[in-house]
C-alpha cells in the first residue's frame, strides 16, 4: 500500500509540474453539453443513417456500436434515422443520451428495419447536406472511456464517450481540431478526419491524441 501511495504521490507531483505554464487559455468558450446519439445493437450490425439538425444533415454508414456527436448544432434539436442494411433479425437500437439520461430510444429487429430518434423535440424535415462536411472518426480502442475537446476558433465542445465515435461539426468557423484524453492504460487512439468525403488526416497516438485540420 505504501509503495502504491508513494507512486501516486510522485505521479501527482509529476503531473502538476506539467501544468507549470501560463498564458492566454480558454479563448474558445464552451459550447452546450452535447447529447450522444448511440447506434447500438447486435455487435457488428451494419446500418446507414442520416443525422440532421435544423441547418445541415449528414449521411453515414457503419456497424454497431457507434456513438455520434453533433457539434455546433444551432438549436439542439436533431433527428437521427437509421436503417439496418442486413437481412437478418439482429437488433438495431438508437438511443439519445443526454447527461446520464436516455432521452429517446427506438429499436428494430426487422430485416433492413428503420428506427428514428429525436433530440429536443426533433426537426420536422431533413436539412440539406452539410457543407462543409467535416467529420472526425475515432476508431479505437473499442469500448474504452475517453474525454475530448473538439473546437473551431469560436466554440469548444466537450465529449465524454467511448470508441468508436463519429464527430460531426456543423458549419465550423475556421479550422477544427480535437484532443482526446484516455487514461494511463488507455492504449492507442486511432482517428481520422474527413472533409467533404476525403480523408485529410489520419493520426494514431496514446493515451492522448490531437488531430488538427490541415
Amino acid at each position, binding site marked *: 500500500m505504501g509503495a*502504491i*501511495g*508513494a507512486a*501516486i504521490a510522485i505521479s*501527482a*507531483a509529476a*503531473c*502538476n509540474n*506539467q*501544468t507549470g505554464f501560463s*498564458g492566454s*487559455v*480558454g*479563448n*474558445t468558450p464552451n459550447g452546450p453539453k452535447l447529447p450522444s446519439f448511440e447506434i*447500438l*445493437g*447486435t*455487435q*457488428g450490425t*451494419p446500418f446507414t443513417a442520416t443525422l440532421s439538425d435544423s441547418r445541415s444533415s449528414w449521411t453515414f454508414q457503419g*456497424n454497431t*456500436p457507434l456513438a455520434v456527436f453533433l457539434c455546433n448544432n444551432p438549436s439542439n434539436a436533431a433527428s437521427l*434515422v437509421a436503417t439496418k*442494411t442486413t*437481412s*437478418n433479425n439482429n437488433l438495431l*437500437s438508437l*438511443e439519445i443520451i443526454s447527461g446520464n439520461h*436516455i432521452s*429517446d430510444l*427506438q429499436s428494430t429487429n426487422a*430485416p*433492413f428495419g*428503420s428506427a428514428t*430518434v*429525436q433530440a429536443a*423535440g426533433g426537426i*420536422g*424535415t431533413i436539412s440539406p447536406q452539410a457543407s462543409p462536411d467535416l467529420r472526425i472518426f475515432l*476508431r*479505437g*480502442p*473499442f*469500448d*474504452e472511456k475517453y*474525454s475530448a*475537446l473538439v*473546437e473551431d476558433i469560436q466554440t*469548444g465542445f*466537450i465529449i*465524454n464517450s467511448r470508441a*468508436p465515435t463519429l464527430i460531426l461539426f456543423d458549419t465550423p468557423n475556421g*479550422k477544427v481540431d480535437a484532443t482526446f*484524453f484516455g487514461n494511463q*492504460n488507455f492504449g492507442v487512439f486511432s482517428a481520422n478526419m*474527413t472533409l467533404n468525403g476525403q*480523408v485529410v488526416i489520419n493520426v494514431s497516438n496514446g493515451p492522448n491524441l*490531437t488531430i*488538427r485540420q490541415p
Partner: protein
Amino acid sequence: MAVVILRIGKAISQALRSIGRSNERLYSCLHPPVRLSQTLTEFFFDGFRVKDFFAYRTARSLIVPIFVVTCVLLGGVQPASAGKKAMVAVGFVGTPPPGFQNVLLNVQAVRINPNVNAGPSSGKWQSIPTPPGIGGKDQSAILQMDLNTSQNVPELFNTAPVRSGTYRTAEILLDTNNPGSLIQNCPQSSPIGDKNTDGCINQPIALNNGDVITVSSDAMGGLVAPGNGKVAQLVLQVNMVVNQAPTSPGGAYLVTVTLGVPPLNLMGSVSGSVTVKPGTGTGMGAIGKVRKLAVTAEDIGTGIAISSANVSNGQYNLLLPAAGGILASPFGFGTLYDLAVAGGDNSYAAERLVPLYPGQQLPPINFTVTGNQTLGNLTGSLTDKCVAGKAIVGATLQLLVPPDSNSTANCLGTPSERAQCVTVALANSDNAGDFPLPGTITIPSQFQNVPAAPKTNLNNAYALQISAPGYNTMVVQAKPSNGTGKKGGGMCAPIGSTTFSQCNLAMNTGYITDTIPIIPPPPGQTTLVQVFAEDHGTNNIESALSMPIVVRNSQSGPITFTLNVPTNDIIPQGFDLFASTIDLYQGTADPYPGHTIAVKSDVLGPGPALTPHACNTATPPPFDQVIDCVGHGSITGTVANANLGTSVILSKQDTDTGHSVQITNSMVENQAPASGPSPANNYSFCAPADTYEVQTAQIAVPSPSVVPMGTPTPVLNDDAVSVTIPPAAKVSGPTATPTAGGPTPTATSSGPTPTATPTVAPKCPTTCSNPDGSCPGICNNVFQPL
C-alpha cells in the same frame, strides 16, 4: 495510533478544504494540458476548462493530501471483478398481454442476490449488464426487449461474470424514466384496445407495481447456482398485464410487470474438450496481445455470435436457447448452431451441430487444435470498383473454415459450397473503408490474431468472404502477416491466383435507376422514402438507399432514385423493389409507416459481374403504384398447425406483372408448450391501409440426427389470402373534428368484424397529412386466420 488517525483526519480535512477552495486547482493535476492549434486551452478529464492557473501552488499544497486520501481510499477498494470467476447466462421468456404488435421493455440490467429477501441496498447484488454492443460494463444503456418475440424461445440477455454461489433473488432493472412502451394493433372489438388512440404507434407504460420487479426462490439450489469456471443459466419469465388503457390521447398504459421462472427448461447445453497439440510455429511473435481460447456458438451459416465460452482446463460449456414446440417432432423443432474455436496461439477449428432441443445435453463436441501458431494480422481497405476513391463503409469480412465433420467443404467455392463453412473470425470496415476496427485494450480484434493457415489449404491461405449491401459478395484467398511486426497487414489474392498482394480490395456493383409517383406532403412537412431491392420472389433484401429520399411539398412529379445492387445475383429473374416511408406521428418517431408501399416486381438488374456489366445501370419502366398518405392499419390472425419453423409473409401485388413482392414477415407467436396450455398461434402486421396478401412459409423440421449443410430457407405454402385494410377515417384539418363514418373493414375470410369508430379524433398531422390538410384518423384492423 491516535496520532496517526489524527494526522490522517487532519490531512483529509485539509484536502477537502483545498478541494472546496478550488476545484480547478485539484483538477489541474489530473491531466496534462493541451495547446491546440488555435487556442491555448486547459482541458481536464471531466470536461472542465480553466482560464487561470495556480498550478505550482496547487501542486505543492495537494501532494500530501492526495497521498493520504488515496491511501485511505485504496484500503477499502476491491476491483469490480474481484472473485467473479463464475458465469451466469441470463435469458428472458415473454408472457405479453394480447392485442399488441410490440410489447417493449427497456431493460438496463438484471441483478441477482444470494438472499431471499434482499433489499435494494444490499451489498451482495451481482449485476449482469446489457451486452457488448448495447452497453456492456458500467455504461448507461438499454436493451429494448420485445416480449412478443420471446414467447416461444428464450432471448439471451447477456452472459456475465459473477461470484460463485447460490442466488435466490433476481431483479430486472427497467429504465425508471421510460420503462417501456406498447404498440397496439389497430382497434377492433378487443377488451384491451384503446379506442381513443391510433394503433401502430408507441404508447408509454407506467408500472402499477413499482419499479422493483423481483423473483425469489428459497429452494436449496436457489434460482441459479454458478460454480467457479462454469456457466449457469437463469431464464426469467417476464409477465405483463395491462391494468388500464390510457385515459387520454398520448397517455400511458398502466401495467403490472412480474418475474417468474418458466416451468419448462428452454435451453440446451453444448460442451466438450479442446485439446491443444504442440505446433512448430513461433507462437504469438511480435503481434502483441492475444485473445483467449474460446468456443463461440453462432447462428448457423451467419457468423452471428450467440454465446461464447472460454476454454478452461481444456473444457468448455455453452448454454443456448433451443426451440421446442410440440407439433414439429417428439423432441421439438430444434435450433441449429455452428461452433467456432479460436484464440490463443492456436489454429482454428469449427463444427456444425445437429439440432439442439430444450433440456438436451448434446454428446460432447471435442476439438483438437495446434498450438504455437505464428499469429499475424489481416488488414487492408475496401473501395468501390465503380467510383474512384469511394470507401466501402460497414462491410462485413468473414474468415471461413470447413467444419471438422465436413473437412473437404470448399470455402472458396460457390455460395452453396461456402454455406457449408463456418466463420471463425469476423471484422468490419470503418468510415475510410479500412479493416478491421480496433479491439479493446486487452482483447485485440479477431483479424489481429490470425494463425497461419494450415499447409493443407490451397496456397496456404484462408477463404475471406466480404459482403456489403448493394455490392457483389467477394471471396479471396487471404494469408495473415507472418507475425514479425504489429503493422504487417497480410496478403490477399483472387481465387485461382498465386499472386498475393496487400488486401486493398475493390468491390463490384451496379445500379438500378427508377421513378416512383408520390403525393407530396403539405407545405412545411417532409416525407422520407426508402427503397429496397430484394431477390425476386424472396424475402432476401439485397440493398437499400444509403440515404432516404426527402420529399417536400415542392416536389413535382415522381421521385427518382438510384440504388446500388449486386451484379452477380444468383436469381436470374433479377429483383423485386419496394418503397416505404419513414414517418413521424404527431412529431415523434413513428415505428410503422402511414403511406402506401409501392412495389415493382421482376426488375432486371444491370447484369452479371463480368465486364461490361459491372458498374452498369438498369433503367426499368417507372413504378405504377403511388406513395400516398393513407394512415396505419394492421392485420392479425392465427395459424393452424404451426410450429416454430412457420412464419407468415406479407406481400403486395405488382398490378403490372401480377406477381407479388414480399414486404415483411411475422413469426407465429405464442406456441405450445412455452406459452402454456392454450396457445394462440397468432401473427400480426402493422402495415399502411391497402390490399395485401398474407401467406405462410415453412422451414422444414430439422432431422434430429442430421447435420445440415447450410442455413435452411423457408418455402412458401399455397395458401395466399388477399386482405384489404380499409383506410382510416379522415380527420379534417389541424383541429380535432372527426369525419363521421368510414369504409367498413373487410377480409376475404371470416373473423371478427373490426370496429373503427374513434371516440376522440387525433389532431393533424397524424402519421402524415393530405394536400388538403386532412389526415388519417384512427386505423383499422383486419383479422385473418390462416
